[in-house]
């Protein structure tokens, strides 16, 4: 248990003029964990992902370490190649490239796979997420919302990252589709990829996360086991708002 965490954030801060969007945030994620991040709108969750990946801006101060090595001074594509991959809330795919080309491009660029192996890796990743074969040649813009999530996860698997940062992947999904997404996240984890998950859908967070951190006004207000965190009075007050959810 004394092993160095796979991803570690130390005192991360991001200021925009007088506004401090992320304020002295520190956390560490062991390899293989699903680490959940919750918080009300505007609490700094997505900004935290932005400064970890350097897209579109780096932190104002603080450090990001991957397997103990600093990555926060690297350029965005170098951070990706080092093993930190992030998804956006929407428009994460390349719209006119086919589903297969999307995953294939991730495999050759991010994982650095040779083209023949990348073809096999892309097919395997699409099999893993069970995207129907008949849909794989279709432009990504023509896929349904859930199929785009499948594509997003397949691209992530083919990229072979060490850590996958998922930014509100359940946005726009129906309840049954959220269950499907839960299974997809478990598939990612089963491939040995550590997951950091930002999500508003608490059911999904509680279902897949082993550790939960809650932000409010850019600061960490609670961190620990998900069941304990959702009972924390500060969290109930700041984010959950009702006793029923905390129960």
């Amino acid at each position, binding site marked *: 248990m004394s092993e160095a965490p796979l991803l570690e954030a130390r005192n991360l801060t991001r200021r925009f003029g007088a506004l401090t969007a992320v304020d002295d945030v520190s956390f560490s994620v062991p390899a293989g964990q699903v680490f959940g991040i919750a918080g009300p709108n505007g609490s700094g969750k997505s900004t935290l992902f932005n400064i970890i990946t350097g897209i*579109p801006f780096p932190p104002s101060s603080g450090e990001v370490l991957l397997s103990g090595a600093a990555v926060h001074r690297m*350029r*965005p*594509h170098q951070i*990706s190649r080092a093993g930190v991959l992030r998804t956006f809330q929407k*428009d*994460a795919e390349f*719209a*006119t490239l086919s589903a297969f080309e999307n995953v294939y491009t991730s495999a050759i660029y991010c994982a650095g796979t040779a083209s023949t192996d990348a073809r096999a890796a892309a097919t395997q990743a699409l099999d893993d997420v069970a995207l129907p074969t008949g849909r794989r040649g279709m432009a990504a813009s023509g896929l349904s919302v859930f199929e785009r999530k499948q594509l997003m996860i397949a691209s992530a698997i083919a990229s072979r990252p060490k850590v996958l940062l998922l930014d509100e992947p359940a946005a726009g999904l129906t309840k049954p589709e959220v269950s499907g997404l839960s299974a997809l996240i478990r598939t990612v984890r089963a491939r040995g990829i550590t997951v950091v998950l930002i999500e508003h859908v608490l059911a999904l967070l509680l279902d897949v996360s082993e550790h939960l951190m809650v932000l409010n006004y850019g600061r960490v207000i609670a961190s620990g086991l998900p069941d304990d965190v959702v009972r924390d009075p500060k969290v109930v007050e700041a984010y959950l708002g009702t006793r029923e959810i905390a129960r």
Partner: protein
Amino acid sequence: MTLDALSTVLVSGIVLASVYALIASGLSLVWTTLGIFNFAHGALMTLAAYLAWTVSDAAGLGLWLGAGIAIAVAGVVAAGVLIERLIVRPFYDHRDILLITVMTTLAAMIFIEKGSQLIWGARLKQLRPVVPGQVNFLGTTISAQEALIIALAPLLLGLLFLFLRNSRIGRGIRAVGQNPNAAKLIGIDVSRLFIITFALSAALAGLTGILLGSVRMVTPAFGAEPLVKALIIVIFGGLGSLGGTIVAAYLLGLLEAFLIFFIGIYWAPSMIFVLLILILLVRPQGLLGKVVR
């Protein structure tokens, strides 16, 4: 209209269209990938024609034409890379990059045009044709150079299409054009691909300048009129669609040739604009462009 006249107009239209397709594709490639218009694109044509003339013409160094072509293409590729690095790259993260680069690339266009005038003077120059002689095409006699333009345009554009579709770099360029942030996230070195895009686009402009430089007279403003036509074609074809650009180039070339035949060279350009405006009123996204909601 007699059959001979039809054939002559058709062939003339195909030659025009081939030149337009080559020049507009380079412009379209930069737009599709970076979301900006390079107004110095036509000036790169001019620069290539002058460089090739200087190396290969008897009044210049008098070397083999092949050497002139190679040096000219290398020269404009270097100029394209310089344009990207010096006057486009500093504004990548600026929200008004489109407007700023209109000004910076226009400035580069003027710089190259006036620089060409200082170096080569205002006197008309013409390159030796790559292939001398005449050939018969669709019942009309044209210069072998024009036949070369007709043959090379689809070949070069086909190669460009295959490169973008099947190569690692080509896929990267397409990915960057659609979603630069997502491209960075999957480990694509976006700024490197921007340089490659500018280099490819400049090479296309350079080759077009060399091919056209033996059919038309080369002056410092040699690339200005093709640039305007290329802009129209890229918009008419549908912004962001290389296929649309190529289709539009061939349509516009043929349309221009027929309009010149029927209403004369003075009215044809105005009529082209009127027709294009009418078409864009009905289909504002262009021929193959997608509706943005």
